[in-house]
């Protein structure tokens, strides 16, 4: 039987390049207040578990969970950090509900990247201290390596990657959260500054601030909360080796494994035709192609051609990143996965406004933790 955990409330704040008037905690309070209102729950009475997805150095604080309970209504309640992408936080909430620890659980993640002066210093600090750290380069060199290998192995045309950026940035123009929306052509994307060859700046998502809070409930409890539940029917997360040198850089093995688990749980047999929309990793342009193949939404080496043909456009066969994704909206560090889920939830509720895809019933969402990791997660959602 498929997994059946309800997303009964969502709330968000920020979605801006900077949020100088609010502290991280105040930004979270806004998102939490909206999510609880949306779900119709009182966090002081109705929620049994709170989960935050953060990494210390992004916050500039060691042990960031210290600073999380108050603004989530979690004081003297079970709260913990899962140092991973927000979708792994959702998976944790699912397990808390399935094991009876909680009937209602809350997941939060955020980016306050505008507080960080030198983010590259932090990203580089995640490289192996002995083998890789001496490469004194923009940490996106890892993406450059992957992209080059992906293009070579799949014989994907270079311009197909640029088309991903064109598509997503254009989609974002319709999204009120779309900080990096733009109407560009492939030439502009290809001619933008090189970030890490062959990757260009316009193919590289830019970080923004934002907080997101999700309220999850057991199937039984969800029936009593609100009338716009979106169901998590399958969830999976996985990691490939942390050694850059050992990975098959052409493929996203972590996404393949995550998808296999999530699909199995949800009973998805033919992913290519099963979904009405997909929000997948597009931290960098090529990542969307690589991810689509890992998720079996495109055959190996065929994703680029399909993007080029318009199959993944908003009005295409399978809208992919109709929200604008990370390239069009912005990248939210560990909250990136929750952003993708947020966009899918709004679609499945029919609340996506100008972005709305008609008759959207089933969605797949996938995220990646970014350089230099090979960790990601997949969720299968339905209404």
């Amino acid at each position, binding site marked *: 039987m498929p997994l059946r955990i309800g997303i009964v409330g969502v709330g968000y704040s920020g979605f801006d390049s900077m949020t100088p008037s609010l502290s991280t*905690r105040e930004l979270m309070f806004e998102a939490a207040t909206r999510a609880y209102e949306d779900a119709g729950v009182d966090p002081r009475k109705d929620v049994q578990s709170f989960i935050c997805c953060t*990494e*210390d*150095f992004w916050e*500039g*604080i*060691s*042990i960031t*969970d*210290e*600073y*999380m*309970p*108050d603004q989530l209504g*979690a*004081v*003297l*309640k*079970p*709260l*913990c*950090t*899962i*140092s*991973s992408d927000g979708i*792994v936080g959702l*998976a*944790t909430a*699912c*397990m*808390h*509900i*399935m*094991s*009876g*620890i909680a009937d209602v659980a809350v997941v939060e993640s955020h980016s306050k990247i505008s507080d960080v002066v030198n983010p590259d210093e*932090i*990203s580089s*600090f*995640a490289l*192996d*201290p002995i083998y890789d750290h001496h490469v004194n380069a923009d940490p996106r060199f890892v993406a450059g390596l992957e992209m080059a290998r992906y293009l070579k192995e799949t014989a994907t045309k270079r311009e197909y990657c640029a088309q991903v950026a064109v598509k997503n940035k254009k989609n974002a123009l319709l999204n009120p959260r779309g900080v990096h929306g733009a109407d560009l052509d492939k030439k502009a994307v290809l001619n933008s500054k090189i970030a890490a060859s062959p990757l260009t700046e316009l193919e590289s998502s830019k970080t923004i601030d934002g907080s997101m809070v999700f309220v999850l409930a057991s199937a039984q409890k969800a029936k009593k909360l609100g009338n716009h539940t979106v169901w998590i029917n399958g969830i*999976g*997360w*996985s*990691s*490939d*080796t*942390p*050694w850059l040198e050992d990975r098959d850089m052409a493929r996203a*093995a972590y996404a393949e*494994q995550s998808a296999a*688990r999530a699909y199995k749980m949800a009973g998805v047999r033919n992913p290519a035709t099963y979904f009405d929309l997909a929000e997948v990793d597009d931290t960098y342009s090529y990542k969307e192609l690589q991810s689509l193949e890992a998720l079996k939404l495109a055959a190996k080496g065929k994703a680029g051609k399909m993007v080029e043909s318009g199959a993944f456009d908003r009005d295409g066969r399978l809208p992919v990143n109709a929200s604008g994704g990370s390239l069009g909206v912005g990248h939210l560090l560990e909250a990136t996965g929750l952003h993708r889920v947020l966009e899918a939830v709004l679609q499945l509720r029919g609340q996506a406004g100008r972005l709305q895809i008609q008759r959207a019933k089933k969605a797949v969402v996938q995220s990646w*933790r970014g350089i*230099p*990791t090979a*960790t990601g997660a997949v969720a299968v959602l339905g209404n």
Partner: protein
Amino acid sequence: MKNRVAIVGAGMTLFRRRMLESPKELSFEATRMALDSAGLELKDIQSVVSGSAPDAFDGMHMKGEYLLDGMGGIGKPNQRVYVGGGTGVFTPIGGFWNVASGMYDTCLCVAEEKMSPLHPHPQYAFWSIFDQILERPLGTTLLWIFSLEMRRYMHKYGIKEEEIASVAVKNKGNAVDHPCAQLGAKITVDDVMNSEPICWPVKRLDVSPPSDGAAAVVLATEKVAKKLTDQPVWLDGVGWTLDSTHWTNRDLAYPEYVEKAAWMAYKMAGIKKPRKEIDIAEVYDPFDYKELHHMEGLQLAGKGEAAKMAVDGVTQRDGDLPVCPSGGLLGVGNPIAAAGMMKICEVFWQLRGEAGKRQVKKDARTGLAQAWGDLMQVGTVAVMRS
């Protein structure tokens, strides 16, 4: 609860001030030993939960990712759980929900900490746990909050430094029998009292040392566990709670967050009278007074009454309620997350009657491990049964 959860294997490395092994290698050693003790191979493991406290110690951003291969996490679902000093006991709690939920049948739980890489001193990492605007400019150290809490605790209940020192004497003495211990020693209350004050009332011998080390356990469903061993140890109750960020607004004399966490775990395990039903307790003891403070939060002693139990010998290995028979953090060492996991390992070994020279005198059937962390804020509790 969907599935009952068993602990089927445990392992740990030596705890030392500075180890040759890299963080990955330490993780591997503990993991390999836990797998061997369960009679399992990595292919038998379906998911991994990792625990490690601030990234600042090992000196890595996204430390959980870096440690992954040492912890057997490649190609597997991995969660790094993190609640500061509470992480060690929280790591198997993470494993608990992986298995209890029915999501996975086996889960490897590994905790690692290598504190020695940080220069000039591991303590420096703790500066960045404080509020960056209101507290760090004052030149804060972690020792401040401990000593402030200890002072308040002593003041409220009229507890003497000598009584508190008896905990350090007991734990360092117990650690003499632990093969991994860093600071096992036969010392006296006078030794503690005469040790140099570092942040009065905290003195040198009131404090656990910074350490390098790793520890691991393997969890499994009842079905899997019964195939592996005649002696599974059941993880029957888990609990955790976080109090407010604003630690200067709280009653520092009593750890309400530990009480809440304990009742969550007790309720799950069906324990109604903890003092009667718990046979042994590995209570978190990074500082000697913390053991007493936490015993009260855990309902193993009345408020202000734990010191008397320590002085009267109730908490000795041959006492009515042995506390920290391992030697605790004060004696075995304190590689933060690994130290909490060491406590889980100890209860596992004690409940199986495998603790050798450390075996408690009484017939121990129900045990408890607890850790604490953050800005004196988090309690994590695990109740185990043989």
